[in-house]
């Protein structure tokens, strides 16, 4: 699904819940959760947990690092999409709170957000209709 699709029609499918363990990466953890259950496209339905440190990306390619432990994930939205190259990619963004409760937001950088104690996530499978895939 490399071509942009303005409107993609589909239905929701299976629902998976995971507890992701310490020192695993947040973004790739969600991708591996999809692999574990055979989801090819999915939306995050709910997520909370903590990170050792948080790493958020900026528009100009820089990185905002929020030092923990622990940095709490207080809001998270995102999706997982499959690509024609045989990979799946989770794009997650959210708000985190540091050990003073101060908040920061942005896109989570894959490979740089390790779970501190636990990360709970519920994802719902997205099944695009054949028509949308063809478009």
């Amino acid at each position, binding site marked *: 699904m490399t071509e942009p699709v303005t409107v993609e029609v589909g239905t*929701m499918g*299976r*629902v*998976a*819940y*995971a*507890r*992701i*363990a*310490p*020192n*695993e990466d947040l973004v790739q*953890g969600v991708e591996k*959760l999809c692999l*574990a*259950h055979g989801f090819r496209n999915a939306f995050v*339905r*709910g997520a*909370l*947990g*903590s990170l*050792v*440190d948080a*790493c958020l990306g*900026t528009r100009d*390619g*820089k*990185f*905002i*690092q*929020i*030092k*923990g*432990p*622990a940095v*709490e*994930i*207080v*809001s998270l939205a995102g999706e997982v999409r499959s690509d024609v190259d045989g990979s799946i990619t989770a794009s997650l963004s959210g*708000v*985190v*709170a*540091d*050990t*003073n*409760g*101060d*908040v*920061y937001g942005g896109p989570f*950088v894959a*490979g*740089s*957000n*390790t779970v*501190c*104690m*636990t990360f*709970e996530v*519920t994802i*719902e499978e997205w099944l695009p209709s054949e028509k949308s895939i063809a478009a």
Partner: protein
Amino acid sequence: MTAALSTLRPRPRTLIHPGRFNPVRIQSLHSANGRHVRLALMPGTSLFDGLVTPLAELGIRNASTTILGGYFQQLHYCVAPPDPTGKAVIAYTKPIDAGSAFMIFGNATIGTDMKGKPLVHCHAALRCQDGRVKGGHILTDTCLVGPDPIHVLVTSLEGFELRQAFDPETNIPLLQPYQEPFYD
């Protein structure tokens, strides 16, 4: 200052936890589908009761929820700095009073505690009564819904359960998915 901007991607840290490493890093289960419910947390009820009671009446004891924005009469939260006792990597602070706060966005997981009672694990971003924007772990039993209902999107987890169980690696009890039923 806990935030820093850099041009180089920071190297993630791998923390040492007090207990034995569990080789299973992703504990997960799925069901064929989930039920969706739009719930209203009614004025004056606690966040805990407002979530748990109406969902139990629908037979939903395991769910993932998104709490949409709304005012609370009172709201308490805590944060998670390093544990000075060393028993775990981090420990929650004492409750912090946010006053009559606005919850900007929250996520709550509903499951069962170690005694078989309902458990709600909630994190949220909020605007405190004094105007500061904060975030953390929400103490759902002492948070009271304000004058207007607050709406919640619920995705139920069917065919498996979330139960709090002691996690030897982190040395704290955590919600984990289980296939077998707790209830008859």
